[in-house]
């Protein structure tokens, strides 16, 4: 009995120690970002920082305006597409995991999350050069616009491909863990597979599913590599909103990627300020979603 108590104590202490060890570096990095980013934003001024053009080494201040717009547009489009595909896919992988096809499909999903994200960008690049010559004449005739090779749409597509496996793997785990009793009850009560899966069981797994949407969205808001050959980047605003979809657009992570690695103080400052804005934005989405979710359920 004494030995059990000892193991109990030691085991719990180990778990807490490892948990702290796991969380500490992440917290340190976040603190580091705010410690360097917030003073930069304060010095430059919040409005100027959020709306201004990115600083060149000759400037004394600047902002992240065009990149912020690009990130919001692409993340919104990418997340919508990613959820539209990833969620039902995850339901399938989780709820029908004993089907051979689902198991195979699951392994392909696992493969997708392992692709170097730059390769996802290259794939979309190739797909765009293939599709645009066919799509653009139609668009020109109907809407009077054209999508260029480097565009917000291409960026959003690449981000969606990055997001799908996150949503799917999370959702699949959640559906796989639903007990048999609950599943059978759901089917018995509703008498309809769709209702059972997407209404009753979804409620049981909603926490995990919501977390997958949020983490997936956060992930694509912070992605750099898939945007390199798709969105390309842009330091300027457009005159008309549709160009953020059809033309090359900037993104906050791209801006950070370049500016954190230059030699110029003002650009380093803005890079960390941009990182602070990015994680604050994501934090806001998290808190908002989790608050509404608690009320909703």
């Amino acid at each position, binding site marked *: 009995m004494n030995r059990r108590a000892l193991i109990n104590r030691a085991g719990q202490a180990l778990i807490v120690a490892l948990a702290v060890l796991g969380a500490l570096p992440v917290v340190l990095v976040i603190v580091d970002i705010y410690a360097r980013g917030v003073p930069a934003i304060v010095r430059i001024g919040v409005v100027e920082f959020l709306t201004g053009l990115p600083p*060149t*080494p000759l400037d004394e201040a600047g902002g992240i305006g065009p990149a912020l717009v690009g990130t919001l547009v692409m993340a*919104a489009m990418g997340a919508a597409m990613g959820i539209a595909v990833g969620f039902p896919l995850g339901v399938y992988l989780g709820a029908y995991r004993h089907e051979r096809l689902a198991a195979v499909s699951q392994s392909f999903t696992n493969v997708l999350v392992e692709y170097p994200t730059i390769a996802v960008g290259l794939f979309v690049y190739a797909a765009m050069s293939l599709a645009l010559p066919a799509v653009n004449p139609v668009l020109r005739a109907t809407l009077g616009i054209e999508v260029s*090779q480097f565009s917000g749409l291409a960026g959003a597509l690449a981000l969606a491909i990055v997001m799908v496996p996150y949503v799917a793997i999370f959702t699949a785990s959640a559906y796989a863990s639903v007990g048999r009793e609950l599943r059978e009850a759901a089917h018995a009560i509703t008498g309809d597979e769709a209702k059972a899966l997407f209404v009753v069981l979804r409620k049981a797994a*909603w926490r995990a599913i919501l977390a997958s949407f949020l983490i997936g969205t956060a992930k694509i808001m912070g992605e750099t590599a898939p945007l390199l050959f798709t969105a*390309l980047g*842009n330091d*300027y*605003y457009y005159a008309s909103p549709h160009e953020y979809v059809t033309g090359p657009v900037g993104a906050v992570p791209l801006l950070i990627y370049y500016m954190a690695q230059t030699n110029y103080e003002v650009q380093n400052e803005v890079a960390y300020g941009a990182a602070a804005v990015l994680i604050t934005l994501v934090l806001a989405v998290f808190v908002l979603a989790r608050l509404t979710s608690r009320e909703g359920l």
Partner: protein
Amino acid sequence: MKPHRLLVAMAAAVLMVAAAALLFTGRGGVQGAGPGTPLVGELRGALVGGGSTFLNPQMQAWSREFYRATGGRVTVNYQSIGSGAGTAQLIARKLDFGASDVPLGRDRFEELGGRLYQFPVIVGSIVIIYNVPEASYASTGKRIRLSPEVVALIYMGEVRQWCDERIRRLNPELADRLPCRDIVAVHRSDGSGTTGAFTLWLSRNYAPWASEVGHGYTVEWPADKVARGLGAKGNEGVSQVVLRVPYSIGYVEYAYWSLNADRYDEVGGVAEVLNVNDGEYYFPSPDAVALGVSEALRSYAEEHGAYPSASEDWGPVTEALVTPPRGYPITAFTYVLVWRDYSAEGYADPATRASLIREFFRWVLTEGQKPENVVEGYIPLPPEVAGIGLKALEGVRG
């Protein structure tokens, strides 16, 4: 079905933020338009270019100053996707212009030479930095002198310690301060024009390097093979590693040293480099670099009868730049590549595009080379070199 409502709310929130941000776009145009002499004419439009990472800070500055000079009517969007990718994307007609630290290779040039112009827009210069606390500039007031042969031997893993006889012989005044510690040879792990110029300099000044290693964006570092090397990402990576790792040596673009010269002097310093043609050691001052470039081009012109033109193969020029008769010997140009005829290449709205290219680069090669528009750490073109691009631009058609 409450979670559905939640999703709608989330989407609405994101869209509202996006819409709010979009509203600022109207302000963006006005806000950037600061002082500066507005250009004449009704120039209006957007260019998209990409390439050289080294050029990025300077190109951002040019783009922004031109944007202001045109009252916000012209945006030049330059993205540093890398020299090789910039060239490839221009050739694929996905960009309006490209920028590269290395001119077109001979095969590409022979394939496209008649249709593309390439001309220099800025001078790059590579410096050799070291971390040797015992012999730091701050403590001794002297800088280590290095010859291409010794630098090559360090990166070949043959000169292994700072107290090696071959280093001490070049530095009699520092000889007793050079420690017997292993040298860490830091190099780029990403492909880069900086490595290209550095390895070309080694190749042309120490024959065994040319036959055993060669030159290019990336080479197989012999030092890596014997566990003496260390790869770092980007100029920033190399400079941070050299600042942090004692007894290391590295090569970076001039700007990455010059802006932090004091910090390097604390732990080591920047090397004075031997020009084998005149036997002098040169400290990388802007004057010594400019001297090296001018002398290199003068000797090129003497040999070939004229300065190179924008429709020529620039390979021989890059070689001349690392073997100047006098002056600092490790320099390179960054080139801009443009099409000669934008309508023949199938671009949309070729006339506007060609005139934007002409006006922007005309500005870059004149106003852009003035001190107020040159970013700290970059070295402007000698006027006769700027003239090469100006002449070519007259031939750009839409």
